[in-house]
């Protein structure tokens, strides 16, 4: 869906982005992760040509993005900004209608689409359509910002720190909301963040950047258990343990679990095979049962704190 090849950007003599290449498949989310100055935002903005690349190529659906008129290209790509960028002189409905209007949609179609999006994002159309952005909370503004990006049904969404301006509580609740949104599940998304937890929560692939170039690109688990180079190894720092727990699911450590008779732990708790180790850990630490029963296919196994730690140790030993 999106192919980026050898993309570079020089500002005067300094390279902001050096030779970046990646591919995002349809329906996947790629997170560009890095500290400020790592070149992640510049990379994102080169995809919709808010910044023109110095060299390299971008293909969208097999089409050379640099060959299209920039405005036409941008109208086919949803764009969500950290500070939402809503037009203060437009109502919520007018803000959402911007791109459909630019594309020359029928008035009725636009109205229907606006209503649909507002409902989807839990903003009552009757109440919110005619409000101005300043009359909304930060979380509501961000939702309108997302609705505006989705309005014209673009297959691709670019998100630049979309939750960056929100307080931590709003941030995680809106993130959960986004994750559940059907419309977003179908989109091909490139998202910029400096928040590691967010990257792991949302990314199918994480592209770790530093000093303008890619340090490692891969699934969250690959980044954790198979770091390439010192930067990748050190990047997660003190959060590593938690991230590992959060990125591994019970199925990932299935071989290390102890077999059990399906009936033997009737009275103890059960866990789902797709639960993350972090969730299991939290349940086991809460002071309830010491072991949980897990079923996979026709097999039944048990999991305990001890088993989790042992399997992690072995897993890292093997992979590393």
């Amino acid at each position, binding site marked *: 869906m999106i192919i980026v090849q050898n993309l570079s950007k020089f500002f005067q003599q300094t390279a902001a982005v050096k030779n970046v290449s990646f591919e995002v498949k349809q329906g996947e989310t790629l997170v560009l992760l890095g500290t400020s100055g790592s070149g992640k935002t510049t990379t994102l903005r080169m995809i919709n040509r808010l910044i023109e690349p110095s060299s390299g190529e971008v293909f969208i659906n097999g089409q050379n993005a640099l060959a299209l008129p920039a405005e036409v*290209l941008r109208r086919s790509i949803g764009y969500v900004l950290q500070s939402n960028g809503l037009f203060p*002189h437009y109502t919520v409905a007018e803000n959402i209608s911007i791109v459909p209007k630019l594309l020359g949609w029928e008035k009725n179609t636009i109205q229907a689409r606006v209503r649909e999006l507002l409902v989807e994002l839990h903003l009552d159309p009757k109440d919110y359509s005619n409000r101005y952005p300043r009359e909304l909370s930060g979380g509501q503004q961000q939702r309108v910002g997302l609705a505006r990006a989705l309005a014209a049904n673009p297959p691709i969404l670019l998100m630049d720190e979309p939750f960056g301006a929100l307080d931590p509580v709003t941030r995680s609740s809106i993130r959960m909301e986004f994750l559940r949104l059907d419309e977003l599940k179908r989109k091909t998304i490139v998202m910029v963040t400096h928040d590691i937890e967010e990257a792991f929560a949302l990314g199918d692939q994480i592209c770790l950047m530093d000093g303008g170039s890619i340090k490692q690109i891969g699934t969250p688990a690959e980044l954790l258990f198979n770091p390439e180079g010192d930067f990748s190894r050190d990047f997660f720092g003190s959060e590593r343990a938690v991230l590992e727990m959060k990125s591994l699911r019970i199925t990932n450590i299935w071989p290390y679990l102890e077999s059990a008779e399906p009936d033997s732990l009737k009275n103890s708790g059960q866990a789902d095979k797709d639960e993350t180790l972090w969730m299991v850990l939290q349940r086991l630490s809460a002071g309830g049962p010491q072991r949980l029963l897990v079923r996979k296919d026709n097999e039944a196994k048990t999991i305990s704190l001890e088993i989790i730690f042992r399997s992690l140790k072995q897993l890292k030993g093997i992979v590393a």
Partner: protein
Amino acid sequence: MNEQQSLWQFFLLHWDKILDQTITHIGLTFISLLLAVIIGTPIAILIARRRNLATAVLGVAAIMQTIPSVALLGFMIPLFGIGTVPAIVVLFFYALLPIIRNTFTGITGIDEAIRDAAKGMGMTDKQILFKVEIPLAMPVILAGIRTATVINVGVATLAAYIAGGGLGEFIFGGIALNNTNMILAGAIPAALLAITFDFLLGKIQKQKPEGTGKAMLVLPIAVLLLSGFYIIPSAGTNLLAGFEPEFMGRSDGYLGLKSRYNLNISSVVINDAVMYEALYENKLDVIGGYSTDGRLKAYDLVTLKDDKTIFPPYFAAPLVRTDLLKEYPELEATLNLIAGKITDSAMTDLNYQTDILKRTPELVAREFLKAKGLYKRPQNGNKATIRIGCKIFGEQYILTEIYRMLIEGNTAFSVETKTGLGGTKICFDALTNNQIDLYPEYTGTGFLVILQPPTSVVDSIISDPDEVFRYVQTEFSSKYGLTWLKPMGFNNTYALMMRQQDASALQLKTITDLKNYIDKND
């Protein structure tokens, strides 16, 4: 104009003129404003896009703003002559800075994220400008237009200096004539205009950003309509006269020309500083000037004989506080040294040297005194300080210097000169309020402008210089405690002037000749 009428009477009597001037004033204000918006806004948009130009452009606009308006008017005369065009150009320059600066600030002040979002959604540059930048900057742009409007209402009064019309005609006429009602007849409408426009524009500006759509429509239409108020007066085929504001309102000026001579010449109001040059450059055909002005000589002008004596004698003499003369009798003797020593032609020549040859009044005064054998080195005494005032024109500066040199050379007094005190009213008020001790005044001015005697008195003695002198001497002494010392000799009276060439070609020698010529060609 025998007695000061009440303000209300003045308004009733002159309402047509006030209305006329107000309409001209509004027109001047808004034509220049319109030009400034048409030219300033694109400039501001340009410098908002290319920030490296911003400092230079805003700097130049700011410099224009710091040039005193009268000076800016002066610069415009060689380029655009007199009348409406230079006035509009000056007002345009004054309106330019607030409009450019506010539009620039408004556009650059927009949150970068909004512009980024607009671009990211695929809006073109033009769409971003008209749908995002201008609407969002509109309150700030309107504030600039509001500022410019109020500035222009004020500065437009100065248009009267260069025959541009407007409420300045009454204001400057009133100041020159010591006629408070006339000043107010110009000042009150001007103030009302400023307050009204400020209020209305404030209303539009205070609308919520989302409401500016309407304002964007209303405003240009209103400005266009108001600009239309100004119909540039077309120059007739006949002779055109230029009179300074003071002349327009005096019975020994324009009013006398009308009543005594029945002279019906189309005229414009213009400042004395540019009047002679305008005549010389064929922008005007007749002016009411001063008979000792140096430019008479420089521009080869002739005066028309006042065959029905409407212009009273204007013999210059020191007007001094009587208290001071009693305290220091030697002062009177000293100032009398110059009595009768300066003839008309001598004064014209002195004025010529300062006004045209640009020599300093001090130098010209010293040379003159040396030639007359009256110059003495200053004694540098400090017995007391004598404060000499002076109106704001060349001849007064020379006379002030002459007084100073005489006092410093012949007495132990030191002298402080307070030059450029504006017109008669300001000098006279300064003298009666004991802010100055003396200034050179003209008998006719004292008689008609300050004393304003009844018509019967004016008619009976106006043609006799000695009678007029005796009258002012007595009246000033009893009414104000001021003393007229002996006149210096010359008579700087009003006179109608024409180019030498025209006067001889048309065979005009007297004002009656001029009247007959105009009536014949009307």
